[in-house]
């Protein structure tokens, strides 16, 4: 694994998360929440642009961020399953706000720990992106935490649905901390972070939030995973079709 591969996986996480989050614009409970989620998605898209642009520049011949976003096929994407899944509790169910809140809590808590560590990466570009991004994801975590507390410690109905959303998301948490895809040499060189070393801090932060929100930490086994190897869930293809169709139908188009 090269710096390019490592950067690509970080960039794909951010880009696919941003694309999914965009579905909430005009669909959140209130217009204020539309804007909040839209802001979060744009923050992640900004991180993705920096990361994909950097990953592409390390290729020979170099590719642009747009090449990587629009002209790769599903098996070439390296994002985790957490960020690509639809927002419904069940495979056929409607979009669920609790799932959004649960996933945002997981993703932003993980990214906070990751970017905090990457700030001191020996790779200057990664360190620079992380230093800027860590403030953004810290706000995302705050936003998610606010909602988890209110829904978890709200009405019986909101508590039940928040807990159900956590149960639905939790099988996809383990993949974030899987070391299998990270080259130990990158960690030795101080370029990348061994994902499992972020786990303790993540667990502590999550446990604090869930305890305050009167929610239970889900006890469910991990899903199969495979996103880092380019093996994705059924929902990934639909996401890519929507994201890529314009660029592919009109190659070279600008807007």
């Amino acid at each position, binding site marked *: 694994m090269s710096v390019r591969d490592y950067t690509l996986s970080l960039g794909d996480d951010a880009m696919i998360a941003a694309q999914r989050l965009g579905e909430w614009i005009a669909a959140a409970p*209130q217009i*204020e929440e539309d*804007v909040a989620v839209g802001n979060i998605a744009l923050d992640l898209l900004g991180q993705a642009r920096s990361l994909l642009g950097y990953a592409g520049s390390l290729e020979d011949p170099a590719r642009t961020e747009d090449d990587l976003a629009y002209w790769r096929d599903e098996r070439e994407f390296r994002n985790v399953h957490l960020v690509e899944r639809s927002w419904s509790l069940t495979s056929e169910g409607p979009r669920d706000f609790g799932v959004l809140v649960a996933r945002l809590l997981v993703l932003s808590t993980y990214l906070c720990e990751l970017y905090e560590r990457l700030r001191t990466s020996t790779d200057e570009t990664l360190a620079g992106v992380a230093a800027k991004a860590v403030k953004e994801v810290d706000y995302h975590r*705050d936003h998610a935490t606010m909602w988890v507390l209110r829904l978890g410690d709200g*009405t019986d109905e909101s508590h039940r649905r928040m807990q159900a959303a956590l149960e639905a998301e939790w099988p996809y948490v383990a993949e974030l901390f899987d070391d299998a895809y990270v080259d130990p040499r990158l960690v030795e060189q101080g370029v990348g972070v061994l994902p499992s070393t972020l786990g303790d801090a993540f667990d502590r932060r999550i446990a604090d939030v869930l305890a305050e929100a009167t929610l239970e930490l889900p006890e469910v086994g991990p899903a199969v995973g495979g996103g880092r190897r380019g093996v994705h869930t059924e929902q990934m293809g639909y996401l890519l079709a929507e994201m890529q169709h314009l660029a592919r139908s009109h190659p070279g188009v600008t807007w």
Partner: protein
Amino acid sequence: MVSTGSTTRETNRRSWPLFEVFVRSRRGLSHVHVGSLHAPDAEMALRNARDLYTRRQEGVSIWVVEASTITASSPEEKDSFFDPAADKIYRHPTFYDIPEGVEHL
């Protein structure tokens, strides 16, 4: 009509109370009213205000106030409230002779 006040607040998402938002654009200036928004409570209102009104570095400080707690003058009282001030020119400091050489008066 938006229902406001913690005692009448419903769980219905349409009934989130209205908050008025004040932003201070930089140190030394006052907070200025910039608009309003809905939020389930003040803490969330502060965050919504950050997302809605300070996206382009408009501010360094935000206040949110639940709109129902503001006591406002009413348009019907306009005449008795404001018109009497119209002809009181002696309330403006225009009757002083300003000595030459005084710059900051």
